[in-house]
């Protein structure tokens, strides 16, 4: 069996794994960009109380928050072909790369989680702020854009940061549908060399660095936008 952990193998793995960081990042970037758009749309539906859509959105958000990411990933992976193939006569499973299923799942998931963050941020700002804006002669759009939005961004920033850390971590699940991200790559190295611990330890380090980096970034952003309030570190 030999030694469990060998430094040489650890260093050999680094160049084999690092390129796959781009897969992890692409999932996070797509999920964040489109998740923000989806989240904003959901909040608009909730605030404007658009009939029917409001109920649909409520069920959707509850489902996304109440089921495991892993199950959602599998639902999309098996569900999209099951739903679309018979209707459009396609063969999605073969035509699509597995990573596309990951994009879809993470966008849908982030949309729901971010909508909850945005919604609570927007409702946390007192209506008096809007009234004050209108009373000094700002238009509704100016009031939203200059007074409400900056305060909303500040309120949403800390939960958005935690969400981003969680997103990076959750992206490690995509190897279960056969996507080769850094986790998937570590597994394939394990299969090929029969030594996987060094690869796992290396990706653990990557995840820790990313998580600390994101936290630090948001901590700085938060301090920049303190608006005179002392915050606990």
């Amino acid at each position, binding site marked *: 069996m030999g030694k469990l952990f060998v430094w040489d193998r650890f260093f050999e793995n680094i160049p084999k794994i690092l390129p796959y960081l781009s897969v992890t990042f692409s999932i996070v970037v797509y999920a964040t960009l489109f998740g923000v758009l989806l989240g904003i749309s959901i909040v608009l539906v909730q605030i404007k109380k658009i009939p029917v859509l409001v109920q649909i959105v409520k069920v959707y958000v509850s489902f996304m928050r109440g089921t495991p990411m892993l199950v959602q990933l599998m639902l999309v992976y098996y569900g999209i072909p099951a739903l679309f193939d018979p209707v459009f006569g396609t063969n999605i499973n073969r035509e699509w790369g597995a990573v596309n299923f990951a994009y879809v799942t993470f966008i849908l998931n982030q949309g729901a989680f971010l909508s909850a963050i945005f919604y609570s941020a927007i409702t946390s700002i007192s209506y008096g702020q809007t009234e004050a804006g209108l009373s000094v002669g700002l238009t509704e759009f100016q009031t939203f854009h200059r007074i409400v939005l900056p305060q909303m961004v500040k309120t949403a920033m800390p939960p958005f940061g935690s969400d981003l850390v969680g997103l990076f971590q959750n992206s490690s699940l995509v190897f279960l549908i056969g996507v080769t991200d850094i986790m998937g790559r570590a597994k394939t190295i394990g299969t090929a060399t029969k030594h996987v611990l060094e690869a796992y330890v290396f990706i653990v380090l990557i995840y*820790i660095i990313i998580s600390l980096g994101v936290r630090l970034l948001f901590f700085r952003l938060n301090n920049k936008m303190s608006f005179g309030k002392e915050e606990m570190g």
Partner: protein
Amino acid sequence: MNFNLEHFKESLIYGLAYLPNTLSLVFVPLVIGLTFGTVIALVRVYKVPVIGWLMAVFVTVYQGIPIVVALMIYNLIFMLKFNDLAAFLHLKKSISDMNNIWVGIFALSMAAVCSISEAVRGALLSIDKGQNEAGYSVGLTTIQTIRRIIIPQMIPVAIPMLINNVVGLIKASSVVMAIGIVEIVAGATIPSSRTYSFFEGYVAAAVIYWGFTVVVESLAQRLKKYTGKFRRNLYD
């Protein structure tokens, strides 16, 4: 659209049959998390020298590790080293006798300890410093003040966050299927490998989880009404 209702029902039954496994994957880590999480939070908030700092570093770093990656590592070590350990302890067991659900429970417990310690710490920090001083001023020791004054006030603040932790644990418990433990997801898809109705299997699993988390959250809503009545004042 292809959706086989019969296969869905079968999966639902299989999934529910493995609910007890999920329950132990949630309940044991929850108890361990509450115990050690509270201790870590107290150690950090009351700034116990060295240990407080070590715990802060540990929690911050450990929370950066995805649970599935930690799980794979623990499982690997367990698989490779259990026989050595058993021999060392003179146990008459080998790896084949052991159920690796304990690896899942261990991984989930570690995560629970960290996240619960953060929730409890947040609740502790929300309590006014004057409460400690008032405790000391009437002659209570630090431990007495924590037990009789601080913790009772902290509980209602911590409950919403703890409920989030429970829901998070329920969802996180699904990753143990990656090391071959059969719980709701793996259970619900047992029939799928025969019928090829994987979609139905995962829908069944989703429904069970969804029901589970909705029940937990509605219980939490009720709990909120019972606890913390004394927190209410004229201003809120």
